[in-house]
């Protein structure tokens, strides 16, 4: 059982006009096996939350804390966080020229586990995971994300989620740019991993459609750098019907 606890989190980014505060006091607790949907309009700070949890150097935490099973996440490097069991599926996965997917996956698995995976089962696992995500085995020989379509990049993120077996996954707009079939494949992949490992999920999305496939236990509406409203799955339905207008109007006032 793992718990990610975010308390009073304030985050700034450096801009030409000086530091700009994007997160203004976020409180969130995610336990193993739970799925939390963070929803909100563009620019509300959803992705900042994702990158801050993963430790992207662009974001500076000015106040508050992130704790993962008693460890101070903010004092950990990016790779230490990953090795502790935190995974970020990125909205825009990065291309790494000249590094083959198979080599990348094995290097990552070795780093996370602290030892190289046994060759025979590993090759089988990779093949199975790719096949589950409808990725041709030839992707193993291709360079990481290079020349992948938007959908292929997202599926490759979920292959990593499946193989690296983190305790807590942050999915940053994994649904963006996916057609209906790809959305279903990706969602099924997340659900399968969750079922197998009891993964905790922080699902960041702008739209409600992915929530038809990945059922959230909790829904948090993110507006202007903090959580404006929280509720159960019914809140997502309400957002579907009403949009974010009533929240943005409130904050403008």
């Amino acid at each position, binding site marked *: 059982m793992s718990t990610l606890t975010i308390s009073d989190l304030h985050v700034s980014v450096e801009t030409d006009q000086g530091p700009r505060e994007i997160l203004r006091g976020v409180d969130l607790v995610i336990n193993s096996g739970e799925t939390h949907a963070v929803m909100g309009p563009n620019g509300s700070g959803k992705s900042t939350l994702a990158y801050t949890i*993963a*430790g*992207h*150097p662009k974001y500076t935490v000015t106040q508050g804390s992130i704790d993962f099973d008693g460890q101070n996440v903010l004092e950990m*490097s*990016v*790779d230490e*966080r*990953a*090795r502790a069991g935190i*995974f*970020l599926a*990125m909205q825009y*996965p*990065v*291309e*790494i*020229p*000249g*590094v083959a997917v198979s*080599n*990348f996956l094995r*290097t*990552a698995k070795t*780093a*996370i586990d602290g030892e190289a995976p046994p060759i025979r089962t590993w090759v089988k696992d990779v093949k199975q995971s790719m096949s589950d995500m409808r990725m041709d085995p030839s992707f193993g020989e291709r*360079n990481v994300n*290079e020349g992948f379509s938007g959908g292929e990049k997202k599926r490759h993120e979920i292959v*990593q989620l499946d193989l*690296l077996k983190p305790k807590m996954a942050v999915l940053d707009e994994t649904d963006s740019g996916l057609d209906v079939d790809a959305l279903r494949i990706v969602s099924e992949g997340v659900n399968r991993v969750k079922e197998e490992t009891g993964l905790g999920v922080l699902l960041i999305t702008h739209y409600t459609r992915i929530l038809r496939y990945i059922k959230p236990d909790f829904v948090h509406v993110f507006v202007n750098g903090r959580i404006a409203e929280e509720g159960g799955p019914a809140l997502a339905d309400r957002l579907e019907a009403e949009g974010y207008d009533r929240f943005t109007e409130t904050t403008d006032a």
Partner: protein
Amino acid sequence: MAPSTSAEHSPAAFYNADALAPIQTRRERLSSFSIDDLNPVSPRSAEWRYTPLDRIEQLTAGTRDGSDIPAVYDITGAASVSHMPMTDALVGRCGRPEEVASARAWQDTHNALVITASAQDTSEVWVLRDSLGASARAGHTVIDVAPFAKTTIVFDNRGSAMLSENVEIHVGESATVVVVSLQQWNDTAVQLASHFARVGANASLTHAVVTLGGGVVRINPTAHLAETAASATLLGLYTADSGSHIESQVYVNHDAPNTVSRVNYKGALRGAGARTVWIGDVLIGSDATGTDSYEQNRNLILAEGARADSIPNLEIETGDIAGAGHASATGRFDDEQLFYLRSRGISEEEARRLVVRGFLNEVLAMIPVPRIQALVHDELDLALEEVPV
């Protein structure tokens, strides 16, 4: 390294030196066997302005030992090796010196090493040169490839050297040739080389310069695509350490219709104060209709004070071409690539190694010699153990 094309063209990504240098077209450059005809060795001449002249004085003035260069030959298939006087008809068919060091080496050399590949079979000649010593030498090699032959020639350069040499590569009609010059010299070694390739009709040349060690290594290949549908792929892969100067003046001369060229040089500058120079000249002559050419140079700067000069030049004298392009980019690590790898648990050091390795792999994968690929792969593993963080 920023992967997007937009980043390639942002001014900040360029390290091009002295944008106001006087332009001398490659077509107009002098060539001669006579030293007096050539530009003096000076920081003001186009041929020498990037080269550390104080470190190559033994090769640009006085005389050098022109006796046969000690080498061990490993020959498989239909190829042979011999020494011929410099007056032999095989010598001087592929080009003439364009600068003083090349002309002096030509004069100093007693006999040319002649490597002959006949058309009967495929062949491979591995030339190990690991006992040249530190005194100044001059040498000349003629690679003579018969029509329809398929051959691979490798120069495996190690140890000490103060070497100036010319290499002629005469590629007969429809032949397929791979020439690799692999440098793992010690860090005081100096090598100046001019490679002159003449590529015949429907023939293809793959030329690769791989420099992993050396003090001053300046290897300037010229590919003269002299007949219809000749093609050349010129590759470069280098890692530059502190104090090393690696220079490549690459020249592709499209001189016949439907000729094709690709130039791809990639380097990692991993030592403080390392210096690399790449000048890529492509000339598409007025008769070279339907040609297709592309040249690129990319450098990854890994250390403070390292400097990469990268200068592509394209001269086109006909409107009727299939394609002509060039790219040049020099930069540091792409932080987003490192973040992505580290977010998968990979340590910063290992992430940097992966990125550098991947960056250089692109060129290594294009060298069609398995033994070179394996050797360079292992060597890079060792070299990249010490990538600075």
